[in-house]
């Protein structure tokens, strides 16, 4: 299918569905027409066509009701590609449509207090009980668990084999008895994250994603989709975190100094070359020759966001903060709040979704082919690992 054909599709769809009518009905119809994510298979919100045609769809449907990519981020970016890759036909049909329309919000139950960068040491147990599983454990840093209907969950199902081999992946029913979500107030004052306590939670076996013991491989698919944050690269020059900094710079000529000017120019250049790398990466993807550059994008943005937001606080010389009120946020809104918030929140950019240290290891080993550090946990059953 080419650009003209997909435009025809969208035009036909718009002729039959009024964007000014009911929002949810419109989104459901868009999914059913295969215009949700065109690279997904037919019947699952897509048309089985090239991914770059999605841009055409988005352009043609601008101005119609939109999904909320903020609050739906984990569902769209992590759960959906994992369900598509490992789900049964029934699971795909059950979960993908309400996930895309936003009727059901998703969260991700991976990290634990003792298992962050070393995720494979996780201890949340799932024990089989005929055609159900009983889950006990604690998860942490769960963004948006407080308004989620489903979670993607990695558990330990076999403690007698080495850590990577004894895990199993589930879809967790966040409304099931025994699921308790507690807010985790963070340095910005608000609570976008949660601790999730799982006590005797019963999940039926048809909520399992992938084979028993294959949880690590399934989780890798999720994490890869999280990290190839190509969407994070601003398309427009001066977009992204450099935008509000430039706005402030233009608004307050009286605060400019020579030192800040030099530093801002250097950051502007770094933002621009990072944006160009993102543009080059997108071209490679369209040409079907994905380069390894994607591995570095999140790393560059974390560093830039932190430097730029810190710069902005310093530039504005404002000792205040917009609002410390404890609140449960819907999603991360960098630009709706002040520079102090941006500065504090950006500190998480080098931790969430793989720390910058882990990402450097991945680049060093998988892109540059450098040897791994000696491992002391190899071939040791999980239950015998020191902790």
């Amino acid at each position: 299918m080419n650009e003209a054909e997909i435009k025809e599709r969208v035009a036909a769809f718009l002729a039959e569905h009024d964007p000014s009518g009911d929002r949810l009905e419109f989104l459901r119809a868009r999914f059913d027409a295969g215009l949700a994510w065109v690279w997904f298979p037919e019947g699952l919100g897509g048309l089985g066509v090239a991914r770059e045609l999605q841009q055409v769809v988005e352009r043609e449907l601008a101005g119609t009701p939109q999904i909320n990519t903020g609050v739906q981020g984990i569902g769209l970016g992590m759960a959906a590609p994992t369900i598509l890759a490992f789900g049964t036909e029934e699971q795909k049909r059950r979960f993908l449509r309400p996930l895309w329309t936003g009727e059901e919000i998703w969260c991700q139950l991976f990290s634990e207090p003792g298992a962050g960068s070393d995720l494979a040491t996780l201890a949340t147990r799932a024990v089989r009980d005929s055609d159900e599983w009983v889950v006990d454990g604690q998860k942490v840093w769960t963004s948006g668990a407080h308004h989620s209907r489903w979670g993607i969950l990695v558990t330990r199902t076999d403690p007698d084999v080495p850590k990577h081999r004894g895990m199993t992946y589930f879809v967790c029913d966040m409304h099931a008895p025994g699921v308790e979500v507690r807010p985790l107030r963070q340095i910005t004052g608000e609570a976008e994250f949660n601790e999730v306590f799982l006590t005797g939670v019963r999940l039926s076996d048809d909520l399992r994603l992938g084979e028993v013991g294959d949880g690590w491989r399934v989780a890798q698919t999720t994490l890869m989709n999280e990290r190839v944050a190509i969407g994070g690269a601003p398309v427009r020059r001066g977009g992204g975190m450099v935008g509000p900094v430039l706005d402030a710079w233009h608004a307050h000529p009286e605060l400019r100094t020579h030192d800040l000017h030099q530093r801002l120019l250097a950051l502007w250049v770094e933002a621009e070359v990072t944006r160009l790398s993102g543009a080059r990466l997108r071209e490679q993807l369209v040409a079907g020759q994905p380069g390894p550059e994607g591995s570095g994008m999140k790393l560059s943005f974390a560093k830039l966001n932190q430097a730029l937001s810190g710069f902005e606080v310093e530039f504005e010389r404002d000792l205040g903060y917009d609002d410390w009120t404890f609140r449960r946020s819907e999603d991360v809104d960098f630009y709706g709040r002040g520079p102090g918030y941006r500065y504090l929140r950006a500190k998480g950019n080098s931790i969430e979704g793989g720390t910058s240290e882990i990402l450097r290891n991945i680049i060093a080993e998988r892109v540059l082919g450098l040897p791994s550090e000696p491992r002391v946990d190899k071939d040791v059953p999980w239950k015998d690992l020191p902790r």
Partner: protein
Amino acid sequence: MTLLYSEVEDELRAAVRGLLADRCPPAAVLKRIESDPHDLDLWKTLAGEIGVAGLLIPEELGGAGASASEVAVVLEELGRAVAPVPFFTSSVLATQALLPTGDALLGELAEGRKTAALAVSFAASPYRPQRGSSVRIEDGRLSGTVTGVAGADVADVLLVPVDGDLYAAEGAAVEVVPSLDLTRPVATVTFEGTEARRVGACDLAGVLRSGVALLASEQLGVAEWCLDTTLAYVKERHQFARPVGSFQAIKHRLADLWLDVVRARAAARNAVADPSPLSVAVAQSWNAAVAVHAAEEALQLHGGIGMTWEHPVHLYLKRAKSAEIALGTPGDHREALASLAGVPGPE
């Protein structure tokens, strides 16, 4: 506009890389630098057999009629090899100055029969094109000096910009001075009533800017060699019973360097696809610094051997540091961005 390499460019790269691997390995460059650094035999083959000298020159004037993006690929390879050939000085800088005039000399340059140099200091920039020059013209004769001219020692013709015009001269005194970059010597050029032929008008700032756009690709090549060579070394070199490259302290530095090089590639491609003053200033302020950083990291991560004359890493450090200054420092280019990118300074 694309930031990717075309198939034609990939083929050109393969041809140049193959020849350089044969004829210009780092050991050969090392051997030459103390006597006569320029490898004019290699230059003859590059110009004559691969046809690099005429890439920018239109077909009707005897060249290949290629674009800046092919020239950029050649420069990446020449940078990787720190090849001591006058491609950048003659086929890029001098040729670009000459192109608008359509002068017959272009045909000779295209075939590599003659080599030219632009009599402008390598320390000049698009923002201060006259830096280092005191040349005047009177009754068709040139007088004055230009310091830090690259490629002058092997040039058959000097192209001298004076007051918006370009002159061709053959009888100047060219005195090579010791230069930081051993593979691209600089010289002081002195004119003492030297006879000169006016060849046409010259937008010197524009010529230097086109040169800057392409120099970013040479710097990319230098950085790539440094990264690749260092990666190979830390995989081989063992300390504390394991490869040095398995230590996280080393891996993280190389991952960061790789990310800098990835961005340098995007910046270099952008500068040739869209050679606007803004793209060019971005590419040069980023790539010049990345090349220097890559060479410094390469030296450090090679340990003591990186400090020796026998190891070629010093050639790359010297090239990188000199090229950082050439045609504007990163700071000069960033300063230009203040108005180009709309980031004004204090009032």
